[in-house]
Every structure is written in C-alpha cells, then in structure tokens.
C-alpha cells in the first residue's frame, strides 16, 4: 500500500514539490507522451506560421508539373518535395497551410467549447433539484445523438462551410463536455473539505474558485485533449464529406476528398493528408493519455 508510505526518502522529497512539478515529473518519465508533446508543439507552430514556412502559395499553380510524384520517386522533382496535385499545386505547401485549418481551427473550437462547457458544467453541477434533473435529461437526449450526426444536422440548418462547421462542432461537443465537468464538480462537492468550507460560511463563488476549481482544472485539460482529438476528426470528416471546408480551402479532409478521383493515378495525394491527420490526432491522444496516467500516478503517492 503506497498510500501509507510516510518514511521513505524518495516519497518525502517528492511530496515537498508543488503538485504541478510532480505532475510534470511523472509526465516527463513517460517518453512516448513526451514525443507526443513535441509533435503537438511542432504542429502548433506550423499552424501559426504556415504561410511563412510554406515554399509556395496555397493556390499557386505550376502548369509544367501536374500530378508529379514525391521527390524521392524516379520521376519526381526536387522543387516539389511531396509532389503536386492535378492542378499543379505543391502538396507540401497545401498540407502546411492545411495545419492552420484542421489543427488550428480544431484547437480554437476546443478552446471555445472548454470555455462554454466549464461555465455550463459548473452551473449544472452546482444546481440542485428539479433544475438539475431537467438539465440532466436534456443532456441525456443530446448525448444519445452522436456528435458528428449532431454536427451534420446543424450544418443542414446553417448550410455547408468551414465556419459553420466550427459552430456545429462546438455545439455538438458541448453536451459531452458539460456532462464530464458536471461529474467532476459533483464528485468534488461531496468531499469533506468542501463541506467544511460550507460550514465555515463560504459562499458558492468562494467554494468554486478556491475549493473546486484548483482541484479539477488538470482534469479539464484531459477533457480538452479528448475534445480536441474529436474536433480534429470531425472537422476533417466533414471536410471529407464536402459538408465542411469547400475547395480550394486547404483543409486536410477537403484535400483528401478533392484527390479521391486520383487514388489510382496518384495515391500519394490521398495518403499524405491522411498521415498528417493521423499524426495530429495521435499527438493529441498521446498528450492526453500521458497526462491522465501522470495524474493517476501522482494521486497514488
């Protein structure tokens, strides 16, 4: 039982550090998660600086180089490292710019969802009686409709488009978010130290800001990573279904569906955006998983 370990040197030294430093130590020990974090940071930099880094413009056409394979192929050209598409656009530049749309917008979406979700979730968690019961049943109904389907319905209302996709995904992710935050708040509310604060005469705001929030924000970060990976997948899936970003926007899902007709002639135009998409989601999941297990390990000490 590690819980009752008071006297070993390592754990006492460990306990002297701040919770956040302890968390970082556990996270650092997990090398795979660290690689995920580096990948995540690299993608974030790519998303913010895309137009500067990309060698060519997004829609710049090179009529002398149509459907060129990547440069390591025999007929490839070193000017276009990852080849070109059917309109002679450099695939590397398009993919780099796509980071802004798919990854950057997904981060934005997840951040807005976090803001709304935390406010509403805390409200749901703190309310009692009929109000909370009605809210929960409403959540139940929306939870039973899958997020992508919900997003598709909202897009059917608003019409296709990249910005509408963002709204749709925010609305579709919210119920799940509210539900998770509500559970965290309810769990924390039932603990003794909160009851002690109530008895000391603290008001709701005080309990929330001093008692509950410092104890749940790390878990909120974990929920954030989960909704971020869903957001990336949903934005690209909607782009792929031609309901989200419309060509010539360089969103990864849209690039993929645009090049679908050339799957036989130019398989790299389909494979490459998918690989990037895969790495974006993988890095997010790695960070989220690493954080979760680090939280669990810190609790076990």
């Amino acid at each position, binding site marked *: 039982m590690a819980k009752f370990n008071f006297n070993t040197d390592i754990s006492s030294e460990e306990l002297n550090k701040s919770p956040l430093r302890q968390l970082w130590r556990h996270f650092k020990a997990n090398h795979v998660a660290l690689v995920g974090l580096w990948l995540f940071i690299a993608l974030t930099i790519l998303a913010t600086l895309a137009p500067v880094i990309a060698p060519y413009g997004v829609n710049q056409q090179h009529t002398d180089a149509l459907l060129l394979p990547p440069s390591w192929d025999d007929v490839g050209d070193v000017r276009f490292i990852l080849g070109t598409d059917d309109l002679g656009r450099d695939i590397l530049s398009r993919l780099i710019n796509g980071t802004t749309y798919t990854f950057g917008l997904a981060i934005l979406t997840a951040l807005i969802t976090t803001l709304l979700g935390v406010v509403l979730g805390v409200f749901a968690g703190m309310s009692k009686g009929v109000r909370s019961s009605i809210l929960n049943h409403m959540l139940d109904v929306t939870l039973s409709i*899958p997020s992508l389907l919900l997003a598709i319905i909202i897009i*059917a*209302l608003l019409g296709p488009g990249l910005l509408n996709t963002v709204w749709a995904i925010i609305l579709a992710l919210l119920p799940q978010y509210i539900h998770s935050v509500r559970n965290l708040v309810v769990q924390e509310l039932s603990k003794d130290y909160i009851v002690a604060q109530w008895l000391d005469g603290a008001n709701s705001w005080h309990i929330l800001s001093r008692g509950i929030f410092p104890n749940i924000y790390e878990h909120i970060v974990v929920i954030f990573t989960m909704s971020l*990976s869903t957001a990336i*997948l949903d934005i690209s899936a909607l782009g792929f*279904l031609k*309901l989200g970003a419309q060509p010539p926007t360089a969103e990864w899902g849209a690039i*993929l569906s645009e090049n679908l007709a050339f*799957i036989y002639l130019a398989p790299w135009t389909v494979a490459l955006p998918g690989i990037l998409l895969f790495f974006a*989601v993988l890095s997010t999941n790695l960070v989220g998983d690493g954080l979760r297990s680090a939280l669990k390990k810190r609790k076990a000490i």
Partner: protein
Amino acid sequence: MALEYIFRRIILLCFMLLLLSIFTFSLSFLFPGDPLTNLSGIQDISFHESDALSEKYKLDQSIPKQFISFITRVAQGDWGISFASQKPIFEHIVALFPATLELALYALLASIVFGIPAGIISAAYYEKWPDKIINTLTLLGYSTPVFWLALLMIMFFCLQLGLLPMSGRVSLLYEIPDITGFILIDILLSDVSYKFNAFIDAIKHLLLPTIVLSTYPTMVLIRFTRDSMLEVLEQNYIKTARAKGLSRSQLIFRHALRNALLPVIKQIGLQFSSLITLAMITEVIFSWPGIGRWLIDSIYQRDFPAIQGGLLAVSTFIILATVTADLIHSVFDPIIRNQTHGKI
C-alpha cells in the same frame, strides 16, 4: 424494485422520445423555406392545394395542435415525401435501414469478439508486453480517421491486390429478391441456383466495410474492458481470494470476469451511437446503400423532409438501443437498480 426501475427507465425513454420529436418537429420551421413544404415534401404548392394541406397539417391552428398532428402522422407512417425522389420517406427508410443495421451489427459483433478478449488479456498482463502491445495498437486505432483507414484498405486490398470488391453489397451479376433487407439472410432465403456463389460474393463485399466500421468500437471496448477489469482486480474480495492461494487464471475467470463484464454490457449498447455515425462515412466511401449515405445525399440535395425523417429514425433507434442495453444491464446487475434515483 426491479419493476420500479423498469418503470422509471420507460418514463425516461418516453421523455427522451418526446424531446426528440419536438426537436424534429421544430426543424421544419428552422429549415429554410416554407414550413408547409418542409413538412409535406411537396414543392410548388398551388393556391387551392395550400388550403387543403394547411388543413391536413393543422398549420392554421396552434403550435401544440400542430405538434399532436405531427406525432399522429409519424405514428401512422406518413412522413411526407422526399424532394429528390418524390416518393414517401417512410418507404425509403424501411428499404434502407436494414442495410445499415446489418453492417452495424456485424461490426458490433466483430468488435465484441475481438475487443473484449483483448481487453481481458491486456488487464491480465497489466504493464507486461501483451498489455503494451495492445495499448499501442489501441492508441493507433483511436487516432486513425475512419475515412482514411477505409481509403488505405481500398488502396491495398482492392487496387493493389485486387482481392476484394470496393463498392456495393453484392455483385450486379446476382439478382437477389428483397425480403428482409439483410443481404445474407435474403440470399439464404432465396431459391436461386447461384446461392453459394452469391453468398461468398456478399461476404467479400461485407468484409472491408465491416473491418473499417468495427475499428473504433473495438478500441473503445478494449479500453473499457481493460479499465473495468483492472478496477475489479483492485477490490478486496480479489485480494482475499488471492490470499487464499487461488491461481491467476482462477482469479480472473472465476471471480473477476463476471463483475468486470457487467459495465461492458452497457457500453456495448452505447456503441450504437458511434457505429451509426461512422456507418454514414463508411457507407459513402463503399457506396453501401444504407440510410447514412442517403442522409448525406439528402443534405447535398437540401432535401429537408428526408433529413428530418432520417434524423428521427436514426436517433429513435439509438435511444432505443441505449435504453435496451441499460435494461439488460440492470437485469444482470442488481446493485445498479437500487442507486438510480434520477441520476445518470
């Protein structure tokens, strides 16, 4: 006690269905265009038709009366007609839903067959190499976008190797009469001479979509089974059993497994919601004639009555599946029946 629990669940079910139908009903006002057109599916309504239709849809009366008439029509199977095909939407749904259901059921079956044992193995060898391998695979599976996986499969198995067909349910060579809508059952029921060949062909068509569709639910089930198993293995009665000298396999199979699999039953029911969504994408890629592809097409065509009907059918199905799984769960697990007082 059990009856009370079932009663409460059924009340909840009715409440959810009521909210869903209110939402669907309000869609015909939220969608662009004339509510009468959106409700009936008839475009270019002439002046004298308009009066009769308003009468039928009770548009001249109060909103609650319109809603009651909407519910009555839904119950009678009068869901309006589609803009695109000018055929009743209910007919479309009855014809298309079995195809989606068939695909989803096989995928669910595959994910149960692979997911649960993998989860158990992973928990039994916690933090040893089988656990690490399974964990890595789950993480990779979680991170793969379903449409990209489908395209990779098509590139490899259909275009590169030419082993499997890439679209449809059965080769056009075989004509199978439509009885139940489930292609495999239809082939078995039909009395055609090429029964065996058609069956093999249908299985070949099914293989790739089923693999693609089952990936995500399999990953979810692996994780869930593993976590649930690890939680049970931490409990005191397991420690007691271990102290008594039971072997590892005895512990897992006799004591831990039953309790660990209880929450998994509920989780299986919850999978329908992600299955149906992913089925929409899978159907589009593999040209599978199901309700998902039809719904996406309806959105392209701005076919509002069809979107409305499709949403109603799909969501009702998901809600029913969730509540059924919940009830089955409560039959096996008496503890859950006692603690549910308006909680989720």
